[in-house]
């Protein structure tokens, strides 16, 4: 079946429908990872967005147990070619079947490079995937322009708290749409991880007397999470060590007077170099963010910039002065992507032990 991807600037790409045949409208973003399509699909940070994979051959190893959450999150999925013959010893099914089961509309067979260039030049745009050949651009384009992501954190967070048992430090993980591997990374290091829904009051978390608090990644514009930011400010005021990733990093910055802004087309992929400003070492990181913290907006007496993106100089992390708090924009939990910054979890553990 034919499918069409219509961008808010009026560009139309014609391809083949994959997954669900229903229409979808969303924000179109691109990811440059060459492997890890399944981790991308199940990353809750993609709630409210449709993802284009820039690597043209997707689905080669099918569906494996490498899910970062229990379901697929993107509103839509856009690829050049989807494999008809998945091959891997852990393969449990094919990607097209998975998209159907998860009711994710998608389009294959389009020139994803041309699309990516358009998103790069004009910035992230809204778009629609439809299988209706008689689409009417007069009607659709205004609708596309109107689209805004709602409150994706509430949608992506867990509904109830749960615990991953461990003998080590007790970590409270605030789930804003957390990838499973954050909890797993801590748990594998022996931590007992208690996962809390995003809107849990700070008092409740503090009362549980955790050794450390982990603020997770998550979807959407950080500024819209007004009440969560309030709670984070309270967490900051305690002496409990805090480690934050991605959205967590942005929320902590907002809680302490920083500003965030939307990047032209975001950073999504597994090849971004980040520099540790303390040691001068550069690490390749996994990234997925459309917003960034304006480093200049942070009071240097509150936080000093700890990591910076080597390519575009954007902020990649803070160390909070006089506090056992450090936050990063990138994803040390990887999945997908390089594992080079996994040592940050060890640093967090050290911090908790020293507390």
């Amino acid at each position, binding site marked *: 079946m034919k499918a069409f991807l219509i961008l808010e600037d009026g560009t139309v*790409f014609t391809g083949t429908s994959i997954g669900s045949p229903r229409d979808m409208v969303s924000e179109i973003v691109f990811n440059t990872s060459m*492997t890890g399509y*399944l981790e991308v699909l199940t990353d809750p940070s993609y709630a409210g967005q449709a993802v284009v994979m820039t690597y043209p051959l997707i689905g*080669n190893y099918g569906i494996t147990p490498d899910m970062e959450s229990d379901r697929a999150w993107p509103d839509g999925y856009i690829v050049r070619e989807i494999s008809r013959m998945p091959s891997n010893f852990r393969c449990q099914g094919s990607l097209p079947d998975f998209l159907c089961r998860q009711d994710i509309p998608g389009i294959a067979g389009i020139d994803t490079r*041309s699309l990516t260039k358009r998103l790069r030049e004009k910035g992230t745009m809204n778009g629609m995937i439809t299988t209706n050949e008689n689409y009417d651009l007069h009607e659709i*384009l205004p609708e596309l322009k109107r689209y805004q992501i709602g409150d994706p954190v509430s949608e992506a967070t867990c509904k109830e708290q749960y615990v991953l048992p461990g003998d080590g430090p007790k970590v409270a993980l605030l789930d804003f749409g957390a990838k499973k591997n954050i909890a797993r990374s801590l748990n594998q290091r022996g931590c007992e991880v208690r996962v809390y829904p995003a809107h849990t009051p700070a008092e409740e978390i503090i009362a549980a007397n955790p050794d450390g608090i982990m603020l997770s990644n998550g979807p959407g514009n950080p500024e819209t999470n007004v009440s969560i930011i309030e709670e984070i400010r309270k967490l900051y005021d305690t002496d409990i060590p805090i480690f934050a990733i991605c959205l967590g990093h942005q929320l902590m910055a907002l809680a302490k007077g920083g500003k965030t802004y939307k990047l032209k087309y975001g950073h999504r992929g597994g*090849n971004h170099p980040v520099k540790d400003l303390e040691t001068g070492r550069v690490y390749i990181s996994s990234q997925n963010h459309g917003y960034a913290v304006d480093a200049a907006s942070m009071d240097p007496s509150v936080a000093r910039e700890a990591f910076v993106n080597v390519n575009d100089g954007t902020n990649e992390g803070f160390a909070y002065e006089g506090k056992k708090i450090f936050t990063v924009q990138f994803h040390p939990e990887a999945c*997908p992507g390089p594992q080079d910054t996994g040592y940050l979890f060890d640093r967090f553990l050290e911090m908790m032990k020293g507390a």
Partner: protein
Amino acid sequence: MPKNNAIKKVLVIGSGPIVIGQAAEFDYAGTQACRSLKEEGLEVVLLNSNPATIMTDKDIADHVYIEPLTVEVVEQLILKEKPDSVLPTLGGQAALNLAMELEENGFLKEQGVALIGTTSETIRKAEDRLEFKTTMEKIGEPCAASLVVESVEEGVRFAEEIGYPVVLRPAYTLGGSGGGIAQTREKLMEILENGLRLSRVGQVLVERCIAGWKEIEYEVMRDGKGNCITVCNMENIDPVGVHTGDSIVVAPSQTLGDKEYQMLRTSALNIISELNITGGCNVQYALHPETFEYCVIEVNPRVSRSSALASKATGYPIAKVAAKIALGYTLDEIKNAVTKKTYASFEPMLDYCVVKIPRLPFDKFISAKRTLTTQMKATGEVMSICDNFEGALMKAIRSLEQHVDSLMSYDFSHLDEEELLEELAVVDDTRLWKIAEAVRRGISYEAIHRITKIDLWFIDKIAVLVEMEQKLESSQLDKELLGEAKRLEFPDGVIARLSGKTEGQIRDMRRRWGITAAYRMVDTCAAEFAAETPYYYSVFGSENEAVVTDAGYGNEDETAEALSVCYKKDDPAKVPAISGSEQDTGVTAVSGEDKENTDMERKKKVLVLGSGPIRIGQGIEFDFCSVHCTWAFSKEGYETIIVNNNPETVSTDFDIADKLYFEPLTPEDVGHIVDLEEPDGAVVQFGGQTAIKLTESLMKMGVPILGTSAENVDAAEDRELFDEILEKCGIPRPSGGTVFTAGEAKEVANRLGYPVLVRPSYVLGGQGMQIAINDRDVEEFMGIINRIAQDHPILVDKYLQGKEIEVDAVCDGEDILIPGIMEHIERAGIHSGDSISVYPAKSISEKTKRTIEDYTRKLAQSLHVIGLINIQFIVCGEQVYVIEVNPRSSRTVPYISKVTGIPIVPLATKVIIGRKLRDLGYTPGLQPEADYFAVKMPVFSFEKIRGADISLGPEMKSTGECLGIARTFDEALYKAFLGAGIRLPKYKNMILTVREEDKEEAVEIGQRFQKIGYRIFATKGTADALKRGGVKANMVRKIEQESPNLMDLILGHKIDLVIDTPQQGADRARDGFVIRRNAIETGVNVLTAIDTAKALITSLENTDIRKLTLVDIAEI
């Protein structure tokens, strides 16, 4: 970390002659590195014995030494040039081994010279089997169960402990020489004995056989601060068991999930960190196909063939970055030269798929075993890029130039199913085609996988191509089907064959339906950043990104702008759609005004056609010529466009031409580029036979051929036309005739009298050329030649045994310039590429030289040569005959340029665009002889090709060459032998066994070897002759006689040299074959021509390795 300012003068060591396992990739790496060092203001001293390289140009380094790569030479060079550092990581294993020896013997320390780019400890840890294993164990990186053994008994004991099959890898050898897989004790003993001998340190690794596992490679970079990145990973389609150099490789990996990908990536980073490598490194893994278990197979602590491939596959300049790291820079300080926005600390992301296929030399070595093993056999490789795997595979196949254009090119349809399954188990260069046949027969993927161990994903991709063949055969060819066939990169010719149409019809259909190739950029970042480097590959059904300078839009931003304008202003319903199947190249609206403006300023545009994969007969020399021609055009104000498909070469580096199209060199592929670029002309005379073959097609496309016209190229090949010209000029040639059938050939041969030369026209490297001594030979050779349908007649010439003379000349239409006359040491009958060539010619008279000059002028003028011409003569007494004329660049151009200091290629290029030699400051005619003798020595890779006959004849067999240059002939000759790896004496024992007609000369040779202390062994006939001539010869029994015989002597490893001259004619293949093969495989030097033997003894008599004088080419 800023640059280390203590480094001011660096010695860069190259890799020496091209041999199997060490090819053009090191010229590419070395050239890139030298340019990178010079960019930093450093003084660069270069040492490489290979004169055909671009790196040995004086434009590339400040001081250039084309000298043998031996410890003695490097020591002398260091004393002479006093560099403060040595960079050995860009010259392959050859350079690394030299650096190790210099470090171990304390010379570097003594002289206060630093090793940069690596340390001896790093080299040892990576290269010494035992240290490597210990190091891997220390960081918990698994290796296959293995043991380093130094004796056969030890090896057998261990193999029986871990169980057969076992893999054997000798330490410190190139391309896995002497390695293999042993299934049984007998086989183990055979390989082990050989491997122990070939290893520089007498060690062989015996390891658990992991054949059938996935073979995955990572290219990793690390700087002095410990920052590391991976440039690329690659998956071998052929599982472990086939040398990666002989495997079909895809980048990035296709069948690995993120878990496996990252697991191995992390492991590679751990390894490069533990080895403390600063620069580039290649790690090879075996990954169990059904678990996460993996083994580290090998680490190369240097730039390698794989890193050249990774550089071309991603656009990341590994050698350049490695050189900068060696100077102290860190990855985040080095700009990404492709995007100019990101840094070298960025990992490339591909949005396409790359396929590499090896170019194997079985067309040259008909008797050789075609099976592929852990010992590399390929002489070169091709790479292709496409946005789908099938397309990349199809493009790579036709890039090979082996008469293959699809998965139907080798026919296995005559086999029954059982035979086919048996054939599938044979791992050779036709396996891809056997799998396709199996798919056609409906044999299940699983069955194919069980036999080949090739991943199902790849088998399915082959099936996609087979299904398309079937659709094209059975369905109506509509727009959709044709579009899909082109997306999968089916050539028009194949589509025509399958659909029962003509190629022209297919082309017309494509044009009518707008199915055209679009070009996309290799930008290192999957379009995340705007890149500026014009490195392109074609895709059907995509937006074109190649910005054509005369189309009126200057850059990409304008393109995007123009696009948005035309989308917005129209009625939304009419918005152009961009689709996968329908073609839409985006911008078409170009205002007339803009066009006019650009036309006025517009540079002329020239298409330079490269020479494709490195193969015997068409080597790196043609890349040298293509690159210099490109640079010369650039200097003359032209816009330059290179088309080539060889990932190992300098010409496919992204900053050589204004634009690089990484594409197959077929008429159709080049045609797509011509359609888009509309060049003002094309140059074909620098790209070897590959480019010459495209002449006719280019003319049909309306592209003017710059330089010598196509008719004149034809005139040199067309026997009748050429004879007319010769007659008109009064130039004699050996008599002969043109034939098509064996009958005709015999008739001509008998008229001329045997021996005769039989060869096809339009070939390079003497392919198919043979000397026949009787009717039976003629029949046999004609049969071989006619196995491939011949478009042109076959030539039968009288074979003259005289001195062979060669000249290269530049002709501007009126005047000629001959840089020098070269003389071959071997008499006529041995291919010029396999002969030792001496400049200046030393045994012909002044009068003969004038005759040669005169003939050259007349021929060049009559053929209206504009540019280069190469002529081969035979001189018998004072009589000069012409045997071959090639109105194009030749193998000898790089070497003669360097030793005479005359920039032949730039000169030819200037002449091509209309300049005159006299105006360029040259006095026409034969140039005065240089003060140096230069000897070009062929280098062979016989030990790598099991079963290949090593005896020399009219068909070329050498893979590379080295140069000896000195004030005296003897020293130049000695250096050339030394450079070719003939290091004598060791044991002072030799074997002499010659054919009847050489007996007299053998006596002289015997006497001279005896005089310098050699013990001579000979078989009866030769021994008798020697004794009669007063040489003390020890008689040995022939190999067919009982032991101890000749073979025992060879296998006893106490022999320095075997001189064995075989009979002429077809029988020579059988005569002495076993002796020569065994000698070569035991690492003994073998000479098969009496003249070569004479030259060797002359050089040994007169020169001492400790007293060589080094010549800086940059000062010539």
